[in-house]
């Protein structure tokens, strides 16, 4: 009997020293029945793309507070694309100014979540995206 589980990588790139937000999301996704791979603090875009590949994830959540999102996120998107994982659902959480959020979604990020986003929203978005991706 096939049993498919949604696999999500939760990544903290850059120099943030604080990962409470990432852990809250990881926990919420776990409670929604997903398998969450958590990589810990201070990951480079290369490390994140490598983990996404080895773990064959359906989605990558990037948590950034440091303000370096316009450098780090496009780099991660490029690496995923280069590895043949351009179809992975990428979402970003953190303090992202609205103008930047528009640019990121233009570059291929599926969703940008600011402070106060309900975890239910994130769970629903991932589930819907993965369901669509698995339809032929």
């Amino acid at each position, binding site marked *: 009997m*096939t049993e498919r589980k949604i696999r999500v990588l939760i990544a903290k790139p850059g120099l943030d020293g604080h990962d409470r937000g990432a852990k809250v999301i990881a926990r919420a996704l*776990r409670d929604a029945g997903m398998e969450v791979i958590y990589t810990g603090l201070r990951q480079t875009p*290369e490390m994140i793309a490598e983990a996404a*590949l*080895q773990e064959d994830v359906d989605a990558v959540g990037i948590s950034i507070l440091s303000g370096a999102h316009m450098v780090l996120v496009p780099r991660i998107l490029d690496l995923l694309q280069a590895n043949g994982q351009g179809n992975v659902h990428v979402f970003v959480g953190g303090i992202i100014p609205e103008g930047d959020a528009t640019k990121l979604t233009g570059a291929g990020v599926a969703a940008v979540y600011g402070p106060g986003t309900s975890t239910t929203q994130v769970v629903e978005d991932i589930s819907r995206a993965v369901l669509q991706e698995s339809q032929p």
Partner: protein
Amino acid sequence: MTGKADLVESVLGGKRLALARLLTLVENNAPEGQAALDQLFAHTGRAHLIGVTGSPGSGKSSLVNQLALALRNPVDGQPARSVAIVAVDPTSPFTGGAVLGDRVRMRDLSGDPGIFIRSMASRGALGGLARATAGIVQALDAAGFDIVLVETVGAGQSEVDIARLAHTTLVIEAPGMGDDIQAIKAGILEIADILVINKADHPGVDSTVRALRAMLELGHPTHQVPAGSPTPLWIPPVLQTIATKAEGIRAVVEAIDAHARHLRETGAWQLRERSRLLAELEVLVQAELTAHWREALPPEALAAALVELETRRISPYQAAKHLVSLQPEAPIH
């Protein structure tokens, strides 16, 4: 989407994305995954399979990280060996979800093409591994990794499935694990080919070493083996490490290699291989039979048996016998 033959070719050709996809198919018990494993099986049997188990918080992930580093950067001119790591963490019994955090301790290993790390959730299995772990290990073996390190979920006294899967089993303990009576109980300590006491800078390490050595002496009556015996016993070494400071790691690698040599020289490698295949076969036969039985079982029979059970007219044992006897033994194909 790549076809089945392409997937097998790509995995054998060292394509990492294809390998990752195959692992997902195997983990999900998808028919494509099983078909690919059927073809890949002929390419397995080359890797040294090493299990790493022990209680939660004893430092398994940190030790695996250091072992992989040591295997990738050998001393005295030995060739570096490629290493695949399978890290199993528990699935929540309530939601079916899991947070897999073993990679947090393995960040030193990123960027090395000779390393492949895969996290797995236990998905309800209770022996310290997931049901699909054996298949995942086969796929990594076929992909050509020299060493496959399998880290179990934090294990207590009965999560001993790893000993059936691995050629060499490391049991990791931390100082202060309990009194001597813990050491003579059956279970996890019995499966150790190598005992590692990690966090050896913590207090109580000497008494832990003593207790484990005493246990080994009871379990391995070395004095009864005549000198020069053709089948020498393997006496599990008790080693001390501080994984966070990379201390004592080379000795563990040496013990792992010594154990592999011992298995090959005494013929125990083939014996382990045979019993491992037998165990795997039994699990698969059981699953096949159960699936057949379910398929052929009239749905009302199960409901009727449940009613009988609830009203205490028959016992569960009688009900099981009855349900199994309902069908003639159908050939599998």
